[in-house]
C-alpha cells in the first residue's frame, strides 16, 4: 500500500486539484486525475520530509478561519498605514524566540506572520530557535511578539500536538476565541 500510495493525503489533494484545474467532475477527468494523483507522489514522495503530523484537525480549521479574517483585517490596517503619513510609522525588526518545533509548523507560523498584521517574517535562525520579524508599525516589539505567540504559535502547537507553552499564561484569549 505504501508503495502504491506513498502519500494518500497528497494524492487526494492532487485529485481535487486536478478536478479544480479541469473545472470538471466528468468520469474521464476523475480517471485521469486519479492516474496523475497516483503517479506524481510516486515521483515526489522522496522529497517529502516535513511529515504531516497534524493532530487536531478542528483546530486547524479554526486556525485557517482566523488567519483568513486576519488577512483581510490586516490589509485594511496596512492600507491605512500606507496611505497615511509614512513618517509616523514606527517600523522595526525584532527577533522572536520560538517555542514551536518542526519544519512545517515553523514554516506555517512564518507564513501566517507574513500574511497577517503589519508583519513579515524575515529569517528563521539556522537552529530554528528564533524567527526574525519585521513590523511595519509597532510601538513596542514585545507586544507584537506576545500577540504572535498567543494568537498563532499556541494554536499551531495545539494543531501539531506539541506542548502549548506560548499561550499558557494568556488563557483568556484562548478561551475567547474557541
Amino acid at each position: 500500500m505504501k508503495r502504491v500510495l506513498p502519500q494518500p493525503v497528497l494524492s487526494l489533494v492532487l485529485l481535487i486539484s486536478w478536478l479544480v484545474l479541469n473545472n470538471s467532475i466528468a468520469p474521464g477527468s476523475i480517471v485521469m486525475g486519479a492516474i496523475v494523483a497516483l503517479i506524481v507522489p510516486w515521483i515526489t514522495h522522496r522529497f517529502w520530509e516535513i511529515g504531516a503530523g497534524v493532530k487536531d484537525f478542528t483546530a486547524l480549521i479554526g486556525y485557517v478561519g482566523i488567519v483568513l479574517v486576519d488577512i483581510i483585517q490586516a490589509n485594511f490596517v496596512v492600507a491605512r498605514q500606507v496611505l497615511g503619513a509614512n513618517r509616523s510609522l514606527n517600523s522595526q525588526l525584532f527577533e522572536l524566540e520560538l517555542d514551536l518545533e518542526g519544519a512545517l509548523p515553523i514554516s506555517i507560523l512564518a507564513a501566517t506572520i507574513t500574511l497577517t498584521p503589519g508583519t513579515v517574517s524575515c529569517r528563521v535562525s539556522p537552529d530554528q530557535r528564533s524567527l526574525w520579524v519585521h513590523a511595519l508599525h509597532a510601538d513596542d516589539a514585545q507586544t507584537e511578539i506576545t500577540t504572535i505567540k498567543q494568537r498563532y504559535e499556541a494554536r499551531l502547537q495545539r494543531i501539531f500536538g506539541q506542548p502549548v507553552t506560548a499561550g499558557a499564561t494568556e488563557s483568556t484569549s484562548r478561551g475567547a476565541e474557541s
Partner: protein
Amino acid sequence: MQAIELLAIVVLLPFFAAPLAAWSARFNRYAAAWVAGGATLVALALFAWLVYGHIDLMPVATSHAWIEAAGLSFGFRLDGLSMMFTGLILVIGLLIVIYARYYLSPGDSMGRFFAYLLMFMGAMLGVVLSENLINLVIFWELTSLASFLLISYWQHRKEARYGARLALAITGAGGLALLGGVLILGHIVGSYELTDVLAAGELIKNHDLYAPALILILLGVFTKSAQFPFHFWLPNAMAAPTPVSAYLHSATMVKAGIFLLARFFPALAGTDLWVIIVSSAGLATFLLGAYTALFRHDLKGLLAYSTISHLGLITLLFGFGTQLAAVAGIFHILNHATFKASLFMVAGIVDHETGTRDMRRLGGLIRFMPHTAALGMIAAMAMAGVPLFNGFLSKEMFFTESVRVAGSMGPVWLLPLLVSLGGLLSVAYSLRFVHDTFFGRPDGDLPKKPHEPPGMMKRPVDLLVVLCLAVGILPALVIGPLLHIAVTGVLQTEPPYYSLSLWHGFNIPLLMSAVALAGGVALYLMRRPIFRWHALSLAHLDARVVYNRLMELLMRTGAGVTAMVDTGRLGRIVLFTLAFAFGAGILGYLLPLGLEPVRNAVERGATPDNGDWVTWLGIGLIILAAMVTTVWHRQRLFALITMSVVGLGVAMIFARFSAPDLAMTQLSVEVVTMILLLLALFYLPQQSRKLSTPARRWRDAGIATAIGGGISALTYAIISRPFESISGYFLDQSVPGGGGTNVVNVILVDFRGYDTFGEITVLALAGLGIFAMLKGLSLPASKRDPFGRTWTEDPHPLMLRTFTQILLPLTLLFGVYVFLRGHNEPGGGFIAGLIVASALVAQYMANGIETAERKLHLPIHGILGAGLLIALGTGLASMGFGVPFLTSAMAHFSLPLIGEIHLASAIAFDLGVFLVVVGSTMLILLNLGRLTDHAVEHPDYSAIETSPAPRSTRRGNDA
C-alpha cells in the same frame, strides 16, 4: 587505336616513370638513373617510330574531350615544330641523365632527382606536343612546378630556395597570364584546338580582343624565356645542380617561351603590336644579357646571362615577324641547345672536379683536363659565332635578317649596329669563359685537385660538340632536312627559300661578324679597366631588387590588409556583419523604388487598429525596460532583472494578441533563462567595466539606432499591409487532418513536426554541448556579492525547503495538465517540459544540489536520449506503413465510463518533445549548478574584476 594516339604515351611515359624512379632508388642508388634513362630511351624510340610513320602526313593531331565546357581536350599534335622540340628534349634529356648519373654526389637523393627530372621532361613534352591550348597551358605550368622542385633540389641552400621561389613566382605569373591569353584566344576562334587557331590568323589579328590576348600570351613567353624585364630569375635558378641548368635553363624550358612564339607565329605574328613588343623585348634582352654575362665571375652565371642573351636574339628574330627570320630563329634554337648544353656540362665538370666555378680562382685547367678544355673551347667558339661552328651559321642568318628589316625599325644603321654590338659582347664573354678557366695561371688553392672526370661524364659533351662541328661545317647535309620540317611546322606552310651554305659572299652580315669577332677579342684584351668601371657603376643594378621590393610589398600588403580587416576582435566582426546586413536591407528596399510609386505605409491607416491604451502603456513599459537594460547594463544583476521585465512584457503581448501558447512558452523560457544567467553570473564579474570610449559608445548607439529604426520601419510597413497566407489550410485541416483543435500545437507536432524535431535536436545538442564544455571546467567563483560583501553561509532557508515540497507535486500536476491538453488547448510538450524542469530546479535551489540529486536521481542523459528516440520513433513508425516520415495517425476509442477518447500519434511525438525539453533543461542547469564542486575560490576575484567604489557598499551603487 590509331598509332598517332601513342603520342600521349610519349608524353605520359616520363610521368609514369617518375614515381618508379623515386621508388627504385630505395633499392639501388643508380636504379633511378637507369629508370630515367630507360624511360627516355623508350620514349625516344616510340617517338622516332611515330615520326617515321607520319612524316608525310604532318601535321597530324589527335584529341579526346576532357572538359568540354571549358574547351579542354587531351590532345596532341605532331608537326615539324613539335617534332624538332621533342627530339631536342628527349635527346638532350638522355644525355643529361647519363651526365647526372655521374655528377650527383653520394649525399644527394637520386630518386628524387630523377623523379623530378622525368616530371619535367614529361611536362616539357606535353608543352611542345599539345594540340589543345589549355592542355598546353597545363603542361606549361607543370614545367614551372618541376623546375621549382629541381632548383630547390639542394634545399638546405638558401640561394636554392630563393632561386626556386623566384623562378616559380616569375614563370608562374607568366603561366597564369598565358592561361588568360589562351582562353581569350580560344574564345576568339571558338576553339582551343591548335589546328583551328593556326588557321584563324586573320580573324584573330582583326579581333578586338587581339591586343589583350597577345599581351597576356607574350607575358607567358617573356617570363619563361627570361626576356627583359623578367630575365633575372634565370641566373638565380643556377643554384640548381648543373645537369638541371644544362637541361632546363639552356636547352629546354627557357625555350618553351620561344617555342610558343614559333607555335603562335602564324596566328599572332606580323602585326605592328607584335613587332614592337617582341622585337624590343628581344633586343633589350640580347644586349643586356650579353653585357652582363661578360662581368659574371661564376661560370654558370656567365652561361646563364649568355643564355638570356641568346634567348633575346631568338626572340628578336621572331619579333621581326618575317618568315625568314623565323627560319633563322628555329635554326638558332637548335644550335644554341647543342652548344649551351655542352658548355653547362663543361662548367659542371669543372665545378665537380675543382670544387669551384669562380673564374677568379680558376685557371690553367687545360693542363689537368685537356679533353674537357677542348670540349669547352669548341662549344665556346660555337657560342661566339666563329665560322665552322654551328653558331656562326645561325648568327649570320640573324645578321642578315636584321639588316633586311632595319629600315622599318628606326634609322637604317641602328639595328645592325646594336646587333653587332651584341655579337661583339658574346665573343668577349665566350673568350673569357675559355681563357679564365683553362688558360692563364692556376690558382694555388683550389678546393680539389683537378683531373679529368669519369669518361661517361664527357661522352654526352663529346656527342654534342661533334654535332656543333658537323652542323657548322656541313649544315645542309646534317641539319637541312630537319630544319625544313621544323620550319614548315612553324609556318604551317611551305617555307620560303633560304640557304644553309657557309659562304654567302662578302656582304654586310659578314662584315658585322668580322667586327664582332675582332671587337670581342679587343674588348677582352682591355678587360681590366672595363671591369673596374663596371664594378663601380652598373654592377649594383640588379633586377632582383625590384622583385624583392615587390615581394616585400606583397608580404606587407598582405599582412597589413589582413590585419586591418581581420583583427580577430569580436567587435569588428559583429560591426561588419551588422553594417553589411543594414546596408543590404537598405539596398534591398531602395532598389525597386522608382520602378513604381510606393504608397507610404503611414498613409494607409486602413487596417483597423485593435489596440487600447493598456496595451500601449504596456508596450511603453517594455521599451523603457529594454532601454534601462541597455543603458545600465554594467550593473549586471540589475540588467538581468530589467530584462526579466522585458520578458514578462513580451509574454503579456503574446497573451494580449491571441497567442496563449507563446505567452506560456515565453514565461517558462524566461524563468529558465534567468536561472541560467544567475548561475553564470556567479562566476563572472558582477559589474561590467567601462571599456569603450564615449566616442565608441556613441558610434555603437548610432548603429543600434539605425538598425532598430530600420527594423521598426520594416515591421510597420509590413504589418500595416493586408495579407494573405497559407494558414487557412491549417485552420481547415487541424481537426480533420491533425486531430487537434489547438492549431498552433497541431502545426508544431504534425504539419510542421519536422521543424519541431529539428528544434528538439537543437535543445538536446545544447545540453550535450554544455555538458561537454563544463566537463572538467574549474572557475574562480566570486566570494563576494555585487556590493563587495561576502556571501552568507546560511543553510537553505527552512521555509523555502518546506513550501517547495508542497509546491512540487502541484507544479508537476500542472505540467501534466498542460501537456495533456496541448493538442486541443494552449499547452503542449514544450511548455509542460519547461514547467516540470523549472519545478525540479526549484527543488535544487531549495534543497541544494546534493540533497536534490540524492532524492531525485534523474537519469538525465537517458531522458534526453529517450525523448529523441520517441520523437524519432513516432516519425519512423509511419514509414513502416509506407508513408513519409512523421505522418501522423489518429484513433477513436469509446471506453465505458470515460467516454470518447481521441488519440493522435502526434501526442506521442509531443511526449518525445516533452522529455527532450525536461532532459536538456535539467542537463544544462544542473551541470552549471554543479560547477561549484570544481570552483576554485578566488578570494580577490571581485576586487580584481569589479570596481566597487568604497562608498558603494553603503547604498545605492547599483542604480
